[in-house]
């Protein structure tokens, strides 16, 4: 091994270690602040305490916001899974023109500025006479979650052996029953990972949700940003720590079901 190669190797490893530290910094800082006793975010914390977690119970507006976020994320993910899977079957199995265009169209919200989509929806929904905030929020969040489902399920369907469906039909299943009993189990890992990412994307969305908010309907990120602006204290770090925990649980489930390397596929 030449000196230059050894040097390159060292440089690459230093960069790798630095990357891990850099990427984990916000999460570690959030956790450290949430378990610290300091009101002014002193790091490292002078003493450990659970006072910010105890504060959570008395934080006004937190529970309603969490409820709205969980509801909207769950309902919109389920709707997206049904619409997205049906569409993915058509895109993979169909022989009609324009499939490429449809798939780009359905994944495109991932690539456009959320704020612009939100503004457009705000005005578009108004022009259609839709004024209910909760319904608008839900309808908008399907647009946030569907791209994740379509992208992943189209990929998984490409690897599925469709002659299994024909086999089930030969054995007496009708077409919908064959889909439910053969296709759904085979696609379970794809459903779970794409559903998970869709759910988290909906939970975390700010730029679209901000346009469908009123005094009674607020999602968690919107409520959190409001806390940050009104009264920044480590209570927000405690809420954040809860979301970090949720992400860790999701990651462990994802790893068990499909493996970390699969999750990193781009």
């Amino acid at each position, binding site marked *: 091994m030449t000196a230059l190669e050894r040097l390159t190797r060292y440089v690459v*490893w230093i*960069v790798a270690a630095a990357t891990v530290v850099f990427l984990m910094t916000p*999460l570690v800082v959030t956790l450290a602040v949430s378990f610290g006793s300091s009101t002014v975010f002193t790091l490292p914390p002078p003493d450990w305490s659970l006072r910010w977690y105890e504060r959570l119970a008395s934080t006004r507006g937190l529970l309603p916001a969490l409820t709205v976020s969980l509801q909207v994320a769950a309902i919109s993910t389920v709707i997206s899974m049904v619409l997205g899977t049906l569409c993915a*079957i058509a895109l993979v199995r169909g022989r009609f023109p324009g499939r490429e265009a449809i798939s780009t169209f359905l994944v495109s919200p991932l690539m456009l500025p959320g704020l612009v989509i939100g503004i457009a929806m705000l005005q578009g929904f108004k022009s259609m006479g839709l004024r209910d905030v909760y319904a608008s929020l839900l309808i908008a969040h399907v647009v946030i979650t569907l791209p994740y489902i379509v992208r992943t399920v189209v990929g998984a369907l490409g690897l599925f052996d469709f002659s299994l469906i024909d086999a089930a039909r030969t054995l007496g299943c009708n077409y919908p029953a064959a889909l439910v009993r053969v296709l759904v189990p085979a696609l379970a890992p794809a459903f779970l990972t794409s559903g998970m990412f869709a759910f988290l994307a909906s939970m975390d969305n700010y730029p679209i949700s901000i346009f469908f908010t009123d005094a009674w309907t607020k999602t968690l990120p919107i409520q959190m940003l409001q806390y940050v602006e009104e009264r920044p204290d480590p209570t927000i770090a405690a809420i954040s720590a809860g979301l970090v925990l949720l992400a860790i649980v999701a990651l462990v489930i994802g790893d068990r079901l499909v493996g970390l390397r699969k999750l990193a596929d781009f």
Partner: protein
Amino acid sequence: MTPATASPQRPPSPWRDPVALLAVPAVIYFAVVYAYPLVWLLLKSFSSPTGFTVQPYIGFLSDPFNWRVIGNTLRVAAWVTLFCLIVGYPAAFALARAGAFVQIVMLVSIILPLSIGAVVKAFAWQIVLRRDGVVSQLMVGLGLWDEPQRLLFTETGLVLGAANIFLPFMILPIYSVVKLIDPRLSEAGATLGATPLYRFTHVTLPLTLPGVVSGIAFVFSMSVSMFVIPSLLVGDRFQTLSTLTGRSFLLMRNEQLGSTTAVVLLVLAVSIVVASTWLGRRLGGRT
């Protein structure tokens, strides 16, 4: 049943393929609640009580303040992308070539932040970038700064925070091409007498270029569009297209200005996607 029985009755036209019906609900849904509002926004920004107009755009582009906003947007996005590329390129190689344990640690540190929202991470960066924050302590500790400095509410702080949040989108696409490269290719080059630099520029770099292009496209377009991160890390004095759009709708209630900036932002974002897709196809990579 023999395979031959399936073939005689092919659909007369591909348009009548019954499987296509399964795509109808999703496509109609998106057409109504997503495409129609975007088209409506676009048309409205070109209409006035008297008919078609480009006046708002002329007004917008003739104001030097707005050019500064466009400049801010592109400059910050360029710095964030450059930072991510410099850190992410070697990191993607390390990820591809690492042993099992290091690879798991790296993958967790890349995927975990991806599942956490921008509000949470930007709030953490507010703490990190304070005068008594981690970055300031580190720089003073290393002797690079004479006294603690506040990076929060500065452009540097914004670039650092945004680069941290978008870095996974640079590493993963590059990693996806690096892991397919046979390390023996470079060794073959060495056997034939190529210098390490020549091997990098003539073997490794061209092979990783599709990943680099899609990483740059991801990070650049997300940096142009970001809204929560600048709101928390840089404040009102520094406006980007995205924060200006948000402000005009949410605070100033100036829908005309908001629609104009939103369309400018949309055009910018779409041209980045189109350009990178075209470049990706030319390079023969998957996008």
